[in-house]
């Protein structure tokens, strides 16, 4: 077994190879048109990757959160059109933490928990009514997990998707973000351990998006370096022009920054709450994706504006993920409150020490 603080390189290599084979331009395009990609999902599920970091007793594949985040980074890098985060470190995590048995199929989760739902409780049974918005891949999910808070306690309710009404919606990348209606659905809700609540769930969601975004920005940066070295104008590759080099350098910086932030946050989350690191990493990923998509699109000229060229698989995902599990305003305001609550002398120790100085 590898050191728990490092990713097993076998995971990186295997996932990278798998997605390189499955997620070519046409397959991603087709998944978008079809609103799902069952072949990509089954090949992915066959490896057991979706359930990494969930213990084998709960029906998972074992391994650490770091391993799972590495797979997500590669999902982002290859723009793999699959609900990897939802099935694994979000929905799967909630279910296994609550002692629920994982289904063999896709799991998804209501990003906003029970917000906007009417929940009635009778003993261990709950009745849920109302509408869940922007639920990733609900249309193909076997189970929909709703994290909810009742009387100060947090529960995970696992709902059979056939008991809900699902209307198709997408994000800007054409990934399913469905509307789910519940009408007096009876569910069993299992109590979650005290360290998991709606706030920590939100951070977990943000962590999943930083890993995906770090991968996508890096691929976008590499794609742009390659494209501009091939594209010739005025008798030389456009990458030789300084104005273009500026876009390349800025794109590469944001790729490095977002990946560093995602990996540092992952390392901390693998040990404990990591609230500071996750908030900072999501804000960094949000802003880095804004800058990098702009630079990379500019360096591609008109080609980047076409469906036939793959840049949009990455850029449209980044524009979408930037707004999922907290946009810039939410995280800067959370971090700002934390920063200002330190006195001036505590400000730098917060930067060097992170969550450890908050506890």
């Amino acid at each position, binding site marked *: 077994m590898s050191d728990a603080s490092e990713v097993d390189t076998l995971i990186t290599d295997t996932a990278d190879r798998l997605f390189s084979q499955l997620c070519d331009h046409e397959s991603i395009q087709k998944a978008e048109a079809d609103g799902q990609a069952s072949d990509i999902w089954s090949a992915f599920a066959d490896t057991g990757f979706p359930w990494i970091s969930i213990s084998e007793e709960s029906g998972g594949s074992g391994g650490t959160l770091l391993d799972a985040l590495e797979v997500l980074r590669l999902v982002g890098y290859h723009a793999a059109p699959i609900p990897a985060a939802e099935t694994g470190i979000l929905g799967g995590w909630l279910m296994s933490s609550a002692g629920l048995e994982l289904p063999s199929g896709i799991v998804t989760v209501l990003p906003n928990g029970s917000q906007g739902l009417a929940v009635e409780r009778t003993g261990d049974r709950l009745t849920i009514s109302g509408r869940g918005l922007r639920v990733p891949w609900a249309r193909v999910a076997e189970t929909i997990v709703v994290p909810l808070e009742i009387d100060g306690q947090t529960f995970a309710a696992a709902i059979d998707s056939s008991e809900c009404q699902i209307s198709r919606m997408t994000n800007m990348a054409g990934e399913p973000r469905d509307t789910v209606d519940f009408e007096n659905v009876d569910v069993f809700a299992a109590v979650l351990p005290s360290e998991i609540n709606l706030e920590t769930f939100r951070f977990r969601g943000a962590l999943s998006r930083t890993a995906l975004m770090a991968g996508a920005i890096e691929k976008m940066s*590499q794609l742009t370096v390659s494209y501009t070295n091939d594209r010739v104008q005025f008798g030389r590759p456009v990458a030789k022009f300084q104005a273009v080099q500026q876009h390349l350098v800025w794109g590469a910086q944001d790729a490095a920054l977002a990946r560093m932030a995602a990996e540092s946050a992952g390392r901390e989350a693998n040990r404990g709450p990591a609230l500071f690191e996750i908030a900072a990493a999501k804000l960094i990923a949000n802003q880095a994706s804004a800058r990098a998509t702009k630079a990379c699109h500019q360096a591609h000229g008109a080609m980047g504006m076409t469906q036939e060229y793959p840049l949009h698989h990455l850029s449209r995902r980044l524009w979408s993920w930037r707004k999922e599990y907290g946009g810039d305003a939410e995280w800067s305001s959370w*971090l700002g409150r934390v*920063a200002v609550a330190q006195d001036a002398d505590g400000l730098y120790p917060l930067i060097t020490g992170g969550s450890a100085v908050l506890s």
Partner: protein
Amino acid sequence: MNNRLSGETIDMRFTPTELSKQELELQREVRGFLLEELPPGSHEPCLGMAARKNKEFSLKMADRGWVGMALPTEWGGSDRTAVDRFIVVEEMLRWGAPVGHHWVADRQTGNVILKFGTEEQRERFLPAICRGELGFSIGMSEPDSGSDLASVSTKAEATTGGWIINGTKIWTSGAHENDWFVCLLRTSPLEDGNKHAGLSQFLIDLKSPGLEISPIPFLDGSHHFNEVTFNEVFVPETNVVGDLGMGWHQNTTEMAYERGGPDRWLSPFSTVEQLLREARGTDLEPVVSDLFGELIARWWGIRNLSLSVARLIDTGEAPSVESSLVKEMGTRFEQEVIEKLVHLIDLEYSPDSDSLFERLLAQCVVTFPGNTIRGGTIEILRSVASKGLKGLPA
């Protein structure tokens, strides 16, 4: 050593790293030292590496083994790592400590002498550097050679026992207060098509006869820059650093030490910290609070990148592309921080405001345009870095 200075064999990667127990211990020790020497509120913080010179302070740091700390013990150093040096420098800069006296010697000159100098030069200079005694200047730029540094024309001509130097260096920070400077000089005439050849590095006593130092007032009237003219200045043979004609290579190596460290992203920190100190007890407007959130996130991210470069240096690499990327990003960030403060905080700050925050902010506004110029402009850095960027895997 993997020679990555050429920018050819690149597999760019910033690996996350964190401080070990001993390294955290050093961080605590440095913080304790600063708390004692410069209690918050007791001193006017300096803005990063453009710090005041305070020899007494440098001597005290040297007493702790924090000047030239990465140099071998046999030359008076502490044989510490690049990461240890990172920790000390980071704490000094965020505190706004007056590190100006030993700054250049500690960051680059000591390394150059260790790497390329003769045994005699090491003996003569390194222990004195590590004691915090010697202040060095950088003699690269000339009136007609800025970004195109290889075009320098200040000449050294061989004579008995040494060299005679004629020409002019410019923008020399601190030459009026320092003891020595390392100069890049032309030792054989410019060849067509090979301007990197024929350059050599020299150690020059700033008190040498024939050497004249004249101030070039900085835009705020302060004395920072100088013009240094050489009029038949004699420099003994023993002051040539490294091999004749290898100056360009040595100089490039020296620049790699200059880049990517905390001095490239911490300059506005004291100002931001002071804003929070003065705002204590008052409610900050949400937009200002949000700005704090954004800034600490960025500082956290950039610091992690910069720290990973130091770690890489400790494995024997010269990560020139990585450090150029960090420097380019870090210095732009420094300016962005100040622009954001200026945008949000509606005060008519001035260099003699009663409020320390306002004084610092005024100083940042006026001096920070230089941050993306000194040590190589960001335009030049981008040219260097872009050649080492990775495209799609084959």
